[in-house]
């Protein structure tokens, strides 16, 4: 309890946290890891029970060995870096393009209504379904992957930014105008902070969709990335490699989502969103 001096100012009046942080931390981790342990146990049981050969399914232990191998030789880091770089660029591009577009659409009721169906339509046409066209236009290149991922990411960003702007009570802007505010002021003080929680939600959703699209595109384009790693491994029947790649895909997603995106979302939603009701 001596460490609570660094707690957020908003929590000053909150009741004290759990009695023992270490014990409850272990308990919490156990709660989250238990389902994974169950899956690994089942996997092991199937492997042993049906006496499956390694060309069908390898043991968890072998995957662990291969994982360590790939990790220590830097192979995994290499492929993962490619994927992370692609998704990172896509996030930046989508934010730069999608947020202003969402604002432009959302700030005009007529345009928002007119484009609502249009945006939903393109939400339905998944990024992957653009792959044939993108390959024709850009070939089997990084550009094709980037186009697919940016497309997948930017649509939810535009859509949620638009929703965020639309959800701001019109009286906020009117009140500010009555205080003498001009358009720039209204955008800066009302629309931007008002739409922020929704923008963050859009980016988070977009990253989830974009990550999946990225892996799929990499499998077909074969220019590096975790999708390339697992699809390449299939050619040589390296089941351990495939599973290692899949684990990396899931772990990276969780790490990025939990350690970067969710804290940002909590920060904005906790402070901004509470009063939305």
């Amino acid at each position: 309890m001596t460490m609570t001096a660094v707690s957020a100012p908003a929590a000053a009046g909150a009741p004290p946290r759990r009695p023992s942080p270490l014990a409850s931390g272990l308990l919490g981790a156990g709660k989250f890891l238990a389902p994974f342990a169950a899956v690994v146990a089942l996997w092991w049981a199937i492997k042993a029970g049906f006496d499956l050969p390694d060309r069908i399914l390898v043991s968890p232990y072998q995957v662990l060995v291969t994982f360590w191998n790939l990790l220590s030789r830097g192979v995994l880091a290499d492929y993962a870096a490619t994927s992370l770089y692609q998704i990172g660029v896509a996030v930046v591009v989508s934010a730069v393009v999608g947020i202003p577009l969402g604002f432009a659409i959302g700030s005009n009721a007529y345009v928002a209504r007119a484009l609502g169906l249009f945006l939903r339509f393109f939400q339905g046409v998944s990024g992957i379904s653009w792959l044939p066209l993108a390959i024709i236009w850009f070939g089997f290149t990084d550009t094709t992957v980037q186009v697919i991922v940016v497309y997948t990411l930017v649509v939810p960003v535009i859509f949620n930014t638009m929703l965020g702007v639309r959800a701001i009570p019109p009286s906020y802007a009117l009140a500010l105008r009555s205080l003498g505010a001009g358009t720039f002021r209204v955008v800066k003080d009302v629309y931007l902070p008002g739409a922020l929680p929704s923008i963050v939600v859009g980016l988070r959703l977009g990253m989830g969709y974009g990550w999946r699209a990225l892996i799929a595109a990499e499998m077909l384009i074969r220019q590096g990335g975790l999708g390339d790693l697992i699809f390449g491994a299939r050619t040589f029947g390296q089941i351990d490699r495939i599973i290692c790649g899949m684990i990396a895909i899931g772990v990276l997603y969780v790490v990025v989502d939990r350690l970067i995106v969710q804290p940002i979302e909590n920060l904005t939603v906790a402070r901004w969103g509470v009063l939305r009701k």
Partner: protein
Amino acid sequence: MDATSPDKIIVEGFQHFFETADGPVQATGLIDLKIPAAEFVTLVGPSGCGKTTLLKAIAGFITPTRGRIVCDGKTVTGPGRDRGVVFQELAILPWRTVRRNIGHGLEIAGVPKAERERTVARLVALTGLKGFEDRYPHELSGGMRQRVAVARTWAADPDIILMDEPFAAVDAMTRLTLQEELASLTFSTRKTVFFITHSVDEAVFLADRVLVMSKRPGRIKASIEVPRRKAGGRDWESFTTDPEMQAICEQVLRLVRDERMDGAARPGETPDPLKEAS
């Protein structure tokens, strides 16, 4: 336009229509109205009679279909900091602290921080928000949020204050306190106030003059003078025991009730102009 006119707000030949898919809908009847400086005018009338439409036109949020609004000798063409608005729904910004909400108008006007802080501190004290300056709106009660909204408008120091049922959403006990505070605040600052309400008691309690609106398309059907407020405003105890005030309340209530019953008995019909005189 006579610039030396004592009237702060002039509504001239005002009439408003809303465009809908089924064609234009008449929101208000013909309205002519003059409000002198420092007068507190309340407006009561049945739901949907166009009270808020009139307020929005004075605020400059909508352009009148016919007629014009003149404030301080200038025709209203849009919102401006000379006319502060307190909304029924809370229009204070949830992502700003009490202090930054109240000081927002001054911030927009480019008032230096030190001076801004002084004004905010004065209004915080005046509205009983001391100790809550750094709280966010969601950490406050409904009554306190409403105080923030009022303080924000006052801090910007507009001559005219337009209020659209500002106390409708707070509980009955808090409302009494807020009404008393508003009565003394407006008395001491000599603001011109245009205040919309559903409550007859509230209308009479706060006003120098109560206007009664007919049902849609609403016109001003009666204007009732209330004896001038004494220094320090009013309080509910003396108000409820004052026979003169109670007589005015009854008179206003009758006028409002007439409208409702007309509406029920003969739906869709415009009010009889001869009954105007009452």
